[in-house]
C-alpha cells in the first residue's frame, strides 16, 4: 500500500532547504488548492471581500488584500522572506524528521500528504536571521504541514532554537500558526507543551526577550504553551486565536458565539494580547521592539 503512494510521488528526494521552492500558500477557502491546480495563476480572489487581485500585487503587499486588508494564510518561508534581511537566514535542525511512535492509524499517509503539500518536512521552520540588522532567533509554524500541529519534531526544534538563543544571548521571535498538539503522537505531543514552556522559562531566567506573534489560526496546545508566553504578544488583524476551537465550543456548550469571538481584536479587548500589527508593518514593528530591548539585555546581564 505504501509502495503505491511512494511510486506516484515526484518528491522522493528532498532538496536542501535553500534550494526548495516556496510552497504554495493556503487560503482557508480553498484548503485543497495546490500549485498543480493553478499552474501559472495570475490572480487570486480575496475570500473576504471577493476582490480579484493580481498575484504580483498581492505578493508585493505581503499577501494582504489591497482592498480590505484581509491577511491570506502564508507559508513559513513566505513569512521569513517578508520579515528577515535578505540572505541573513541560517536554517537549523532541518534534518529532524518525524516518526510514528504510536503506529497511529493513517499517520504516515498524513505525513506524506503534508510533505507534498508543503514541500517541507515538518510543522515548524527555525533558525537565525537578522531583522533590520538585529540578529534574532526565529521560528515559524508551517500551516501547510498538518496545520502546524505540534508533535515531537515541532517541540524539539522549538526547544533547540530557544536553547541556542540562550547560548548566543539572542532574542526569540516565534510566529505561531497551529491547530494545537498533534493527535497522532498522543501523549508525546501533549508533553511538547510542557517542554517548550520549560525552555521559555530558562530563556526568561536569562533576561532574554521573547516575542510571540499569533497568526491565523492559533489554537489548543500551542495557545496553551509557547504562543501565550511571550513578553510581548502580537497578533495579525482578524487572526482567530483561542484555546478551544469555535466549533467545539458551539457543539459541546450549545453556545452561540458572538461574531467577533476569538479574533485578534476580541483577544485584545479582553486583555490577552498587546498589539495587533498588520503583516506589512510587522518587520518594522519587530525591529523597533527588538531595538528597545538591546540596551536592556546588556543591563540585565550585569544584574
Amino acid at each position: 500500500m505504501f509502495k503505491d503512494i511512494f511510486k506516484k510521488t515526484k518528491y522522493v528526494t528532498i532538496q536542501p532547504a535553500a534550494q526548495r521552492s516556496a510552497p504554495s500558500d493556503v487560503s482557508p477557502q480553498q484548503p485543497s488548492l495546490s500549485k498543480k491546480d493553478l499552474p501559472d495563476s495570475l490572480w487570486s480572489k480575496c475570500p473576504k471581500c471577493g476582490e480579484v487581485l493580481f498575484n504580483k500585487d498581492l505578493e508585493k503587499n505581503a499577501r494582504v488584500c489591497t482592498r480590505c486588508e484581509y491577511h491570506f494564510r502564508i507559508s513559513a518561508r513566505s513569512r521569513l522572506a517578508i520579515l528577515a534581511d535578505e540572505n541573513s537566514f541560517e536554517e537549523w535542525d532541518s534534518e529532524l524528521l518525524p516518526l510514528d511512535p504510536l503506529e497511529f492509524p493513517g499517520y504516515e499517509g498524513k505525513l506524506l500528504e503534508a510533505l507534498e503539500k508543503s514541500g517541507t518536512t515538518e510543522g515548524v521552520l527555525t533558525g537565525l536571521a537578522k531583522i533590520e540588522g538585529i540578529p534574532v532567533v526565529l521560528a515559524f509554524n508551517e500551516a501547510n504541514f498538518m496545520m502546524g500541529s505540534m508533535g515531537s519534531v515541532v517541540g524539539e526544534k522549538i526547544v533547540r532554537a530557544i536553547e541556542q538563543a540562550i547560548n548566543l544571548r539572542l532574542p526569540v521571535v516565534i510566529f505561531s500558526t497551529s491547530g494545537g498538539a498533534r493527535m497522532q503522537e498522543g501523549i508525546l505531543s501533549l508533553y511538547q507543551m510542557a517542554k517548550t514552556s520549560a525552555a521559555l522559562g530558562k530563556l526568561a531566567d536569562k533576561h532574554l526577550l521573547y516575542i510571540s506573534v499569533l497568526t491565523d489560526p492559533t489554537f489548543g496546545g500551542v495557545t496553551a504553551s509557547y504562543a501565550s508566553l511571550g513578553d510581548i504578544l502580537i497578533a495579525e488583524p482578524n487572526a482567530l486565536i483561542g484555546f478551544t476551537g469555535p466549533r467545539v465550543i458551539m457543539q459541546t456548550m450549545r453556545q452561540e458565539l458572538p461574531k467577533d469571538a476569538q479574533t485578534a481584536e476580541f483577544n485584545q479587548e479582553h486583555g490577552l494580547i498587546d498589539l495587533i500589527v498588520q503583516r506589512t508593518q510587522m518587520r518594522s514593528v519587530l525591529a523597533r521592539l527588538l531595538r528597545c530591548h538591546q540596551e536592556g539585555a546588556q543591563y540585565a546581564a550585569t544584574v
Partner: protein
Amino acid sequence: MLQLFDFEKPIAELEQKITELQKFSTDKEIDLSQEVAILEKKVDFLKKEIYGSLEPWQKVQIARHSERPNFYDYVPLLFEDFIELKGDRLFADDRSIAGGIALFQGTPVTVVAQVKGKGTKENIKRNFGMPHPEGYRKALRLMDQAEKFGRPILTFIDTPGAACDLAAEERGQGEAIARCLLTMAGYHVPVISTVIGEGGSGGALALGVGNVVLILENSFYSVIAPESCASILWKDTTKAKEAAEALKFTAQDLLRLGVADEIILEPLGGAHKNLRQTAEEVSQVISKHLLRLRAETPEVLRENRYQKLRGIGVYQENSKKPLGFLEKDLTK
C-alpha cells in the same frame, strides 16, 4: 448500587449465584459450603482474568466511573490536617480545582488537585472537573507559595479537560495553562504529579509538570478525549473504543513512552472497589519518591525536571535516506 459495566457482568452474575446459594443453604439448613467454595474460587479466577486484561476502553470506563474516588476521598487517608485555601485573587474561586496545605507523613506539603463532583448537583458546582482560568491561577498561586516556603508539591490529576466555553476564552484559558507549565518547570522544590482518574489533555497537563509522574493502574492520560479523536478520524463518536486503542494512553503505555515513572496498583476491578487499599498504595509510592527527591538539592531538582521534559518525544535525526520517516514501513 454501583455502576456496572458489561465486561463485569459475568463476575456479578457469579457473585449473585453465590449469594443465592448461601441464602438457600441457611434457609434450608443444607450444607453447601463446598459448592460455594468452588464458585468463589471461580469468581476469583474470573476477576483476575477479566480485570487483569482490560482493554483501553474498559480502563476509560473505570477511570470515569461515577464512584471512582476523587481528590476529597483521598484527603483523609493520605494527609493529616489538610487546610483548603481558596481563590485566585483575580476573579473567583474555581471549585473544579482544590488546593491547600497538608501534612503528608509529618511533612508539610502543598496539595493541588482537579476535582470532579459526585452526582449531578456537585458536578455542576465543580463544572464536571473542568477548570476555568481562575482554577489554574489559583493552583499557580498556591504552588508559588510552596516554592516560596520550600514545601514539596503534590498534584492530583483528574479532569476530562479544561473548560471549553466562551468565558474560559475571554479570561485566557491558554495563557493560564501555559503559565502553569512554565512556572512549574522552574520550581526548586520536589513536584510529584499523580493521575488518579482521567488525564484530559492540556487541562490535565497544567498540573502535570512533575519531577515524577505517577499514574493509577486504570487511569488514562491523553492528548485528546477518545470521543473527539474518533470524531476527527472517522467522523463517528461511537468509535471511541477504537480511538482509545490508537491513542496509547493507558498507564502501561505512558510508562513505556517515558512520560510516567511508575504505575500505582489498584485493587482488582478498580480503585472504587477498595478506597482504603488504593490510598495505601498511593501513599506508599508517593512517600518513596518524595523521600528520594527530598535528598536532592534545589538546583538538581529543577534541572532533573527540565531534563525529564527535555527527553520526551520520538523523532529521528541525521537519517541518510530522504523521507527517513517512511523507512520503517517500506521494510515491512
